[in-house]
């Protein structure tokens, strides 16, 4: 389905992503882990064509997407939605508008600029927001929302694109543990219910283990691990993070145990 072939990205003399080859043959949820600077973001950004690869090829369902430009490139971007660590919403616009931006590729420029969204789209946007439990916020400005809510708006925008693939670049890095849970659960549910492929950069091992079907470890631009969560032992993790003996998983954990359990249950119910 999705095939990444020795994808490389160099910034000047520095190599951010180094001959990465990954094959995804059915919709699964993939977690990418690695230390800061390992190249996770760059890889995802190349998949979304936000960054042009220096070398290598990305193919999706037999079609080469890495070389696309202009409208074709934007078409591919519409098919593989991206979720960012900082949400990247338009803060001064309301939530529905932000979600409706997911239809920008299809909508004509005029329609987008004049906010002449079809009622059907608005209805769908609200439904998606409802699915994520934030339909009440629909008319508020995005900047008025909490971080966790904003990230769910970003997910809603992604869903609005009706994408085959959802890319998420450390979607929970700037969230508190409770909101992190809600967001990860939402992504998982989307994967399970809609059958969309989700590729998710994560900076914590336990999150990757808990939500992903497959984990890819990166180090200095290269893929150094690719397997199931079970195969991801502490030893392997040490390799990936290049950590010395003092490496402790807890240091990176975002797991919540007692206090917020109720909240999580609620959130799951909502999604």
């Amino acid at each position, binding site marked *: 389905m999705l095939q990444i072939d020795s994808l490389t990205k160099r910034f000047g003399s520095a190599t951010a992503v180094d001959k990465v080859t990954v094959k995804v043959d059915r919709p699964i949820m993939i977690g990418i882990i690695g230390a800061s600077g390992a190249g996770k973001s760059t890889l995802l950004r190349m998949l979304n064509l936000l960054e042009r690869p220096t070398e290598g090829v990305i193919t999706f369902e037999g079609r080469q997407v890495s070389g696309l430009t202009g409208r074709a490139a934007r078409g591919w971007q519409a098919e593989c939605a991206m979720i960012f660590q900082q949400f990247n919403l338009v803060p001064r616009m309301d939530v529905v508008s932000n979600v409706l931006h997911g239809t920008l590729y299809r909508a004509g420029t005029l329609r987008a600029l004049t906010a*002449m969204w079809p009622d059907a789209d608005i209805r769908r946007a609200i439904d998606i927001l409802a699915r994520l439990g934030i339909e009440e916020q629909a008319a508020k400005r995005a900047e008025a929302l909490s971080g966790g809510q904003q990230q769910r708006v970003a997910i809603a925008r992604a869903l609005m694109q009706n994408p085959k693939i959802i890319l998420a670049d450390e979607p929970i890095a700037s969230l508190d543990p409770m909101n992190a849970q809600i967001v990860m659960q939402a992504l998982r549910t989307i994967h399970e219910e809609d059958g969309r492929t989700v590729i998710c950069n994560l900076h914590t091992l336990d999150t990757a283990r808990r939500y992903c079907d497959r984990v890819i470890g990166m180090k200095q631009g290269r893929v150094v691990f690719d397997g199931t969560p079970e195969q991801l032992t502490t030893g392997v993790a040490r390799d990936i993070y290049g950590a010395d003996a003092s490496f402790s998983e807890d240091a990176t954990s975002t797991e919540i145990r007692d206090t917020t359990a109720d909240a999580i249950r609620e959130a799951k119910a909502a999604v």
Partner: protein
Amino acid sequence: MTDTTAAFTTARAGLRRSQLWIFGVPALVLAYLVYVFFAFDTPRVLAEADGENGAILLADMVSYKVHVTRDNGSGDVEYAIEGERKGRYPAGESPGWVTPATAPAGETLIDLGDSHLVRLFGEGGLRYDVPGYGVIEAKASRSGGVEASYPDGPLPDWINASGNRVAITTDAGRVNITRARTEVMRYFPGWELFFFTLDSPYSGLSFGQLAAAAFGGEAGAIWSDFWNNDMWRHKEVVWAIFETILMAFIGTAGAALIALPTAFLAARNFAPLGIFRQATRRLYDFLRGVDGLIWTVILSRAYGPGPLTGALAIMFTDTGTFGKLFSEALENVDEKQIEGVRSTGAGPLARARYGVIPQIVPVLLSQVLYYLESNTRSATVIGAITGGGIGLLLTQAIITQKDWEEVTYYIILIVLMVFLMDALSGWLRRRLISGGGATD
């Protein structure tokens, strides 16, 4: 799912509201522009816009013409660049494309290029061979006016003929025949005589030859011939630029020097007496509200024409501007620093010097330097009315419509001058404000 209906309704209402802006603002803008379009009578102006003038202007900016003028009374022929006295060829000399008459009343052959040949005969006669059209013959006399004959067919629009005057304009040049004079003009690209006038020995020399002459000890003479060039008058132009910058500098610096102490009177925290403060502020408003140009007119009675008048006008307006800016800066100063200085037993002047000035210096300098640059432009405009300087040269050159290449020359110099002042003020700003300490 009843919830989502409510959410849908509010969301859609919100979108509709935002559309009020999205459509309303552009509609208002458009409506206003349409109103202005008709209020300014744009259709008529566009219809009457003289493309030809534009073309003349563009052509004249980058080209010059050489006049061959015959006095139809005496039969004397003169050659002059731009038809000006100062561009006249010395007696006995003529441009290479003219074959002067060998005998009085003989034939003068003028080659306008591209096979356009004009012949001047005795007794006011002229014959112009226009390739692709035919031969035009004309004869000018006191009694008969200008009698001309043209090839058959209707008169083309590039010939403008009346009983006493015939004007022919072709791609190669222009011919004007009246009873008194016959003039033939040929156009050349470039700014002729920019460096040296025809009477200079250096006129027409190549760069290499000039360099050689300069090394041969003639550098001073070369410079003097260039500097005192009668056509382009580089010396006066440079003086004019200098005068313009002078007006801007004195106006800006003087305004800052006046505004700095007086701004204390207009700042709430330094002038507790309301009447004084209000009076000072209103005075600033007045000085600022009357534009520099109007100050120039007002001051011209007391000071007459000249750069001082312009400088004072700038000083008047900018004292108002700076006074307002400085007093606002003063109202925003941090009291803690002043109190610190005050607690040592420092007097009021020392408190101002150490407690206040260091705080407002960055604002002050950056504003003053910004205005220095913008006042260079104002000084150009003010000079156009009274002051003098490059603005006067420019407006006069444009109004009297003589030489657009001079206008171009002045415009280029003005742009360079403003660039220079912009760079200078930027450089000073960076040095003085980030480098700080030195002036504190």
